[in-house]
């Protein structure tokens, strides 16, 4: 499914974005860097607070798990030493989640829930990137996330919704217009090592394609910010 995004949707947040992808819609608001509470304070770097609110109900361990994952890799992307003893708050609210009637059918049938996590993470990560750029927080590199699926016939497709034997979430960092490194990966299902590497390889290519799209959006939003110069 195609990515659809808007930047700067929340007026009172430092930076914000709205992304819909694979039937999931997320709004991300970033506040900060701002004064940290004493127990959050880190002497040399910034403290990241990631908050995910689900589409329905209250946050559970599932959301906490996602928060942790996002926080861990954002920590390696944000230039923390520019904001010592401050806190940067990343709020992610899932607005919409189309029920994809559990397409996951592995032998072990672990749970459709884990697979949903991948779809949501995918959307959250892309939306966090756009919001970080909008909030003007310094980052080492650009990043984006793609999701790949091995169908039962064994072919690899860039899709998060079709029936799957395994799914792979791949997040690459981009620096100097080139793929720099793998920042984060998450896999669900049954797959061999070779298949994983094939998915990662495909991810490199797709991530440059997605990056050019995100770049287009960011450039447009910068133009909007500097409209008074025209």
């Amino acid at each position, binding site marked *: 499914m195609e990515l659809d995004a808007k930047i700067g949707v929340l007026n009172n947040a*430092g*930076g914000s974005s709205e992304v819909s992808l694979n039937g999931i819609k997320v709004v991300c608001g970033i*506040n*900060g*860097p*701002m*004064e940290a509470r004493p127990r959050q304070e880190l002497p040399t770097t910034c403290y990241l607070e990631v908050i995910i609110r689900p589409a329905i109900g209250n946050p559970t361990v599932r959301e906490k798990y996602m928060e942790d994952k996002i926080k861990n890799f954002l920590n390696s992307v944000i*230039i923390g030493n*520019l*904001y*010592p*003893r401050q806190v940067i708050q990343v709020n992610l609210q899932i607005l919409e989640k189309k029920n994809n009637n559990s397409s996951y059918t592995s032998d072990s049938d672990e749970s459709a829930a884990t697979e949903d996590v991948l779809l949501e993470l995918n959307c959250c990560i892309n939306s966090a990137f756009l919001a970080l*750029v909008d*909030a*003007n*927080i*310094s*980052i*080492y*590199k*650009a*990043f984006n996330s793609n999701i790949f699926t091995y169908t039962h016939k064994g072919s690899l497709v860039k899709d998060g919704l079709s029936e799957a034997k395994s799914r792979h979430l791949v997040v690459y960092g*981009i*620096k*100097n*217009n080139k793929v720099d490194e793998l920042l984060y990966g998450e896999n669900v299902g049954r797959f061999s090592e070779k298949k994983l590497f094939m998915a990662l390889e495909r991810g490199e290519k797709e991530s440059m394609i997605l*990056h050019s799209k995100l*770049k287009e959006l*960011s*450039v447009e*939003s*910068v*133009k909007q*910010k*500097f*409209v*008074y*110069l*025209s």
Partner: protein
Amino acid sequence: MSIIIPGDQLPVDETTLNSKKLTVGPSIYVDPLLDNQMTISNAGIFTHKEKKTKQLITVESSSKNYIPAVGDLIVGTVLGGFGEFFKVSLSNYKPPAILSYMAFENATKKNRPNLKTGSLVYARISAYDPNIDVELECFNPTTGKAEGFGELTGGTVVEVDLGFARYLMFNENNPVLEHLSKKCQFEIAIGVNGKVWIKGGDLVTTLACCQYIEQAQRLASGELEQLLKKLWKQHNI
């Protein structure tokens, strides 16, 4: 206008950068761990200026979040006093800056400046280190004169994007204020912390000026005149 975002390559090649003495402006991160490699860390407008012996690269990026720097002129709100200092807020949800009682024109131990909680000051940032309090001063330390700094009485404050505040401040002939000056008399103090204090002849003019500045940041310069006309008509001035 060349716009770049994080993940892009510097639009200037390395041989040009090595040819003259280089100064690197904000939004370009020089990584000490990667052999002083330069990467673009924020999205904005890239500029490269060259002179005979030196050159400068910067990325001008706009945000809503102010990070202090020495020499910045700011509009702050007095939050109260402690010991020999005023606490001054530069932006919300940020630790306040301190302004010494002695950092005013003609101030002595006995002749203390009288600022109430909530009053506004125009000040300069005299010391900044991310690990300690930001220090302000309301006079020129070499001459001891106020030179326009000090309490701002009357008028009102508009909050604008930081990029727009810098644009107003560093472009003397900017069309935004030029159009306004043809319409009415006003006093203005622009803080690069995104706060603009403005005072017109009377309350209605102040209100109109205020709305004008706020809305001008979302318009191209061609549309300013129309906006002015609309606002002035709306307020019956």
